């Protein structure tokens, strides 16, 4: 960032800081900008309401602040013993005390009224054009298009910032951090511009929260419950947010990215996505070679398993089970298939293994085959075919 740009950003910040909304219209980036002093530029009606509500409250608070502390500091400088000021003796005044109870009360009402309108608008999730379910999982998001154009589309969305940019304790990052560091994913959620999108939120394991600051939407994703919220993005672009409810180890590493596109582009995206899904749909009768399964399994493992079981298969002591040398992985394959499909909760580890039914038969077959032939594992039953998974599902 050049100094000129920095100065520009600072001036904008100052303008926003002293609440001159006309001057405060920075470019829409869909992510925070350096030295930003106010909220991200809203691209939804609700967002604009909240932005101006906040500016209005800032003005009122600043006026009160200057008033009260103007009086206090005048007193601090004038009514000093060192300036020979003699203390007065008054210590109450019913009229004044009633006045400064009533006046703040009225000011508070003046703030609550416009806010009420926005609260009611935010809760109105009726008449949506599109309904999308977002599922929080440790530590990624799953999206299911439930209703409207694109119904049936489902995918997982993982952090795509490489570990080489993040680094780890004692090991510096080997790659420079990009401008979307920790704000980028492999599969973005895509929505059409100007359409009312109802978000249905839930979670698989612990509470997560889904937000896009530029949309002014934020809703907790609560396991076992569904909650909803909505947004209508008015500008095409890519908007980025984060998980905002502490959800364990990789809380900081499960961002949210929504790409807002024109309705034609959206239709095109739906068509491609549907084709992709059809191609991915399994032919469970196909017999795979062990190498095919291992290659596919490695990718499935990296996308779904590595966060808990770790790249070296050793897990995290007392929290996540190791797979390297595990009795389940090296034992009968039927049991491992069952664990993947239905999950498992043993007292030996604090975190339970969730069910992975949402993965395809070939994904499950591949990842099991991968774990049975990797690290020090040399299982006797070293290959699982998709057909076996399908059979286990119907049990």
């Amino acid at each position, binding site marked *: 960032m050049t100094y000129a740009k920095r100065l520009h950003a600072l001036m904008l910040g100052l303008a926003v800081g002293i609440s001159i909304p006309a001057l405060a219209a920075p470019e829409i980036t869909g992510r925070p900008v350096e030295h930003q*002093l106010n909220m991200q530029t809203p691209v939804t009606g*609700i967002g604009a309401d909240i932005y101006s509500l906040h500016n209005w409250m800032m003005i009122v608070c600043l006026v009160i602040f200057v008033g009260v502390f103007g009086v206090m500091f005048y007193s601090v400088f004038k009514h000093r013993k060192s300036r020979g000021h003699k203390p007065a003796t008054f210590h109450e005044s019913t009229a004044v005390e009633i006045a400064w109870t009533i006046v703040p009360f009225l000011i508070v009402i003046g703030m609550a009224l416009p806010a009420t309108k926005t609260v009611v608008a935010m809760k109105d999730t009726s008449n949506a054009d599109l309904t999308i379910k977002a599922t929080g999982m440790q530590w990624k998001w799953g999206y299911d298009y439930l209703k409207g154009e694109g119904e049936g589309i489902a995918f997982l969305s993982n952090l795509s910032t490489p570990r080489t940019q993040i680094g780890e*304790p004692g090991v510096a990052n080997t790659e420079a951090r*990009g401008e979307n560091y920790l704000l980028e994913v492999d599969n973005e959620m895509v929505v059409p511009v100007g359409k009312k999108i109802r978000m249905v939120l839930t979670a698989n394991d612990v509470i997560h929260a889904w937000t896009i600051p530029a949309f002014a939407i934020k809703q907790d994703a609560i396991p076992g419950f569904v*909650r909803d919220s909505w947004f209508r993005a008015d500008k095409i672009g890519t908007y980025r947010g984060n998980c905002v409810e*502490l959800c364990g180890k990789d809380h900081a590493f499960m961002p949210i990215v929504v790409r807002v596109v024109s309705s034609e582009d959206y239709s095109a995206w739906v068509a491609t996505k549907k084709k992709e899904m059809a191609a991915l749909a399994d032919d469970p009768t196909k017999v795979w070679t062990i190498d095919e399964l291992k290659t596919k399994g490695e990718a499935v493992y990296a996308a779904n398993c590595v966060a808990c079981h770790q790249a070296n298969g050793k897990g995290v002591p007392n929290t996540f089970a190791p797979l390297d040398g595990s009795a389940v992985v090296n034992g009968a394959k039927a049991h491992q298939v069952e664990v993947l499909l239905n999950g498992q909760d043993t007292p030996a580890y604090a975190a339970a293994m969730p069910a992975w039914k949402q993965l395809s038969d070939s994904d499950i077959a591949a990842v099991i085959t991968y774990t049975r032939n990797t690290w020090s594992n040399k299982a006797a039953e070293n290959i699982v075919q998709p057909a076996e998974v399908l059979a286990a599902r119907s049990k």
Partner: protein
Amino acid sequence: MTTSTLDHAHDDHHGHAHDHDHAHDMPTGARRWLFATNHKDIGTLYLWFAFIMLLSGGVLALMIRTELFQPGLQFFRPEFFNQLTTMHGIVMVFGAIMPAFVGFANWMIPLQVGASDMAFARMNNFSFWLLPPAAILLATSFFVPGGATAAGWTLYAPLSTQMGPGMDMAIFALHIMGASSIMGSINIIVTILNMRAPGMTLMKMPMFCWTWLITAFLLIAVMPVLAGAITMTLTDRHFGTSFFNAAGGGDPVMYQHIFWFFGHPEVYIMILPAFGIVSQIIPAFARKPLFGYASMVYATASIAILSFIVWAHHMFTTGMPVTSQLFFMYATMLISVPTGVKVFNWVATMWKGSMTFETPMLFAVGFIFVFTMGGFTGLILAVTPIDIQVQDTYYVVAHFHYVLVAGSLFALFAGFYYWAPKWTGHMYPEGRGKAHFWLSLITFNITFFPMHFLGLAGMPRRYADYAVQFTDFNMIVSVGAFGFGLSQVYFLFAVVLPTIRGGEKALAKPWEGAEGLEWTVPSPAPFHTFENPPLVK
């Protein structure tokens, strides 16, 4: 209080203080502290315990700020980072701020109401000695498999059920500290209601006693609620119950309701006694009685009552019905009215006074200034739509540090400088006290002011790593945090220890404008005071 005069010969006290004819001589050595039943000794124990916890929690905070100095993971794995944020919160709230106020209560309430000691001296001993085992549980939980609890200080379910044995240790520590708080509160209530000197009616009581009386009732009301919440977490973890597990018919959000029914009054538990300390100091250094004593009492009581009906403003993003959101928004905004009354009263007390600015006054004025900024962000956060936008971001972190550090902690410092002459018999070094104030005020703002911007821009809290756009502000924050931490080390070595060891002898009443019974006994206060109650007119 402000109009009371004393009808009590000072010489009387000296007579009693040196009179060793009754059974309890002052014990010495370890027995003095282990079997302490004297309110002053127990107060000292509480204050030292709180200060040690403050420094420990501060070290945790600085570890957090070290990792957050720049993006990427440099020092700690995220799972350990979460342990740091969690334990920083628990240690500061339950180990530092709350025990520090109880320490002040122990020292000052009997002296202020003219009582010879706290009502239940042995229970008082037990209340204190419960705390070190709790602190040991918390500290050693870092070394058990899986480490300390990393579920955040709020211990939200179901994340809390994923934790290792460190979580159980935290639950037991909280139970123990809760029991200690409840006993401490019972002691304070009984002392204030039953042991006031003849003539001291409730409406003549010093404000510190009033705020503590109200705080003690809050504590008794809500500590059992916390105990209930964490006990349910414990049985969910080990005994197969499903209070907070939807798969078994429970509800994770119910935990949040129960927790915040405790948690919101808890924040007033940590600020009301601070209001009390400031209400003592401002009149003393303005040489003018407190403005609106009665309205101060009513405002404190109103805040306490309102604190029970605002808890769900911590939960606006859980997805409550619109009517609940509106109710909790209105109720929360209402709290700004009595809080505003307090600030106006303090300013009116200063108005046309004859002020001097020794360190206690500096910290008290600094408190009003900076706490009010936290109050404004509180008002902004009360507005549901804005809260939803900044919930779980650094804006909230900034807000509660403005009220808890610049609020509670600054008031505790103010109280230390104000009453240390009475405790130690020595004047603290004035220049160093002022240096401590300015260092603390400036580094505090460097640390926490930029967090408002980070939060508005959307930086989530409890993040071990963050987007590169947040780098510069995070660097400023980390630098400020180390400055603030070092200022408190300076406070310990340059102010507290030298004041205890020596220094200018303090008069019985070292402050020209101070009022109250505590200034009628010599400095340092003798081991036994007010064996014959003074008469307050």
